[in-house]
């Protein structure tokens, strides 16, 4: 069967939604949260590559390389924050982070 552009777009939007919903559905663990952020980026990458392929224009794929790099850096910082949170609160559940409000 022929996979069309819209199939890719639908796939990526589904992944995107899973990522978004995951962020506010999950409440136990910040690591899950980082994973959801990754999912969003993966959806974006899928979009870019699909467009790039069907447009026959390589700049989309170049963009993806950069996104991957940034994502790696982002996760590194996310994990660092996570470690600090554990040191301060003794937990990595997001439930503990509600002292700033109002």
């Amino acid at each position: 069967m022929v996979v069309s552009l819209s199939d890719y777009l639908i796939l990526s939007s589904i992944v995107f939604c899973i990522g978004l919903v995951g962020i506010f559905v999950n409440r136990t663990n910040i690591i899950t949260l980082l994973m959801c952020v990754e999912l969003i980026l993966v959806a974006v990458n899928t979009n870019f590559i699909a467009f790039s392929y069907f447009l026959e224009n390589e700049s989309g794929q170049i963009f993806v390389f950069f996104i991957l790099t940034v994502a790696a850096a982002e996760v590194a910082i996310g994990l660092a924050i996570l470690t600090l949170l554990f040191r301060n609160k003794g937990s990595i559940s997001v439930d503990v982070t509600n002292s700033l409000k109002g």
Partner: protein
Amino acid sequence: MENIYLILVLSPLIGAIIAGFFGPLLGRTAVHSITILGVLISTVLAFYVFNHHVLEQGEVFNQNIYTWMQIGNLDVSVGFLVDNLSAIMLLVVSFVSLMVHIYTIGYMADDAGYIKFFSYISLFTFAMFMLVIANNFMQLFFGWEAVGLVSYLLIGFWHHKESATEASLKAFLVNRVGDFGFLLGIGLVFSFSGSLDYSAVFSSLDNALNQQLWGLDLITVICLLLFIGAMGKSAQVPLHVWLPGSMEGPTPISALIHAATMVTAGIFMVSRMSPMFELSDIALTVVMVVGAITALFMGLLGIVQNDIKKVVAYSTLSQLGYMTVALGVSAYSVAIFHLLTHAFFKALLFLCAGSVIVALHHQQDIQKMGGLRKKMPITYWSALVGTLALIGFPGFSGFYSKDMIIEAVNFSQLPYANWVHYAVVAGVFITAFYSLRMFFIVFHGKSRIPPDSAKHLHESPLSITFPLVVLAIPSAIVGYFIIEPILFNGWLEGAITVAPNHTSMTELSHRFQSASAMIFHAVQTPPFWMMIGGIIAAWVFSLYKTQWADWMVQKFRPIYYILESLYGFDRLNEIVFVGTVKKLGNLLWRVSDVGLIDKILVNSSANLIGVIGSVVRKIQTGYVYHYAFFMIFSLLIILTWTLFAGDSPLLEF
């Protein structure tokens, strides 16, 4: 001439700067000498300018002094427009300011903030000059804000008094409402004329004709917005609540700022804008009705006050109402005439009140005074002149201006003018009643002063009594001499425009014979008998049968209660203005960060978007999720909007 105007305007500023920055080094005597000298120079020059422009009919001076910003077509300059209107205003402001400066020497003698006070009132004088001499809207607005700022500073001058601080906050807040209306009005003026210069704006008024905004003429909208500004400054109902509170400030500034000059800025501004207001009967009607409401109902409140300054404050509100009524019926020159006489006699009354207050060691309750006539003769006679002028006793200056307002209303063709006429005639009775009630209670009758302070009671020092006497003279006679030139012989011609279909001024000039004839004619008019009635009523209730007053209070408790609670305006103000804002803020604060997500969004979305909602409901513990949810929910709303709305509907709005 340009240099004369510059010196006139700047000399109080220089005085203020010297007093403000070097005052502590110079000492008290030097400070008051310098600031008084500054204002004295202004006063002398103001007499000269008055003579040049008004009496000798000199050329109108309209020139930009300094260009300050020029961005595209927006040109903001400091410029002077000196015509007869500003010349008269300059004279009034400088003269009253000079008297108040002298008076302050005696009044503030024991105050630690002596130097600061002088620097503030000189600064105020400068700002007021800038306001009246402006030739463009921007400078007008700046002067407007500057006088306001000094006024807040001075209301809160005794900031160790909690009530003074609150009053100054209240004045600031209420004036913001007016100011933003004013600013929007200026913005709209700019949008149709492309200029902020008076003459350019007035000559391009044709552009604005036939333009509509919110179902009204553009001109009407502009006039109403500008009038909102005037309502704030000139304390018209419902933006009047700050003026009685402003009595927390020292008495000299009550006389200068809150009676004679700043509060009349709104009246002055509307007169300046007369070419615009003349084009809108709707705006004029609103002006007239608001003025009448203020004149009548604020006078009523004066009857139940027991604080000597509050009585005078409510009387100021009521008189400002009279001026506004005059504006509404297109009798601008009468409004300016009343502004002028009022400046003298109301400043006089305030200074008399201050003299009494000082003599009684800051006792302001009139029920604890009485019989002061013997002990303070100069104050007594000055207060008598002021009171007679205020109630419009024939021959005194207030008589001419107020009678002319009442007559002008009588001739007005505007809708509701007949009702307004009744209101202003009834106002005469009320004015006479509360003024003489206060006068009798304070100066006549039995002394209710505690014996220990009665022992030291004596007339105030010369620095206080001198201004009283000097102000008493114009309060008594100025009306007689200037009524003819100011109203009918064209002192204000050119500065003020009256549309041909507003005929009250022409009718007035047909009826007018001479100032002396008015006195004899007065006996045949209802206002005179209303005034006599008011005097008699005041005498009965406050001297002859004082128990009747108590009986009336008993019998008409509900009315008394309404008056005493100031028609609930303060309460309303508290609830609507401060309360609602606070509550709304509180609500939104909860809603936007906590409540909306927890209670409204999460719970109701359970019904709306079943799946997401039921999932979300399980997880309402950590706030990050809620934030994220909020973002995504907003995203969904926006996407839906984009999908279905087509062209952006908000732009229509």
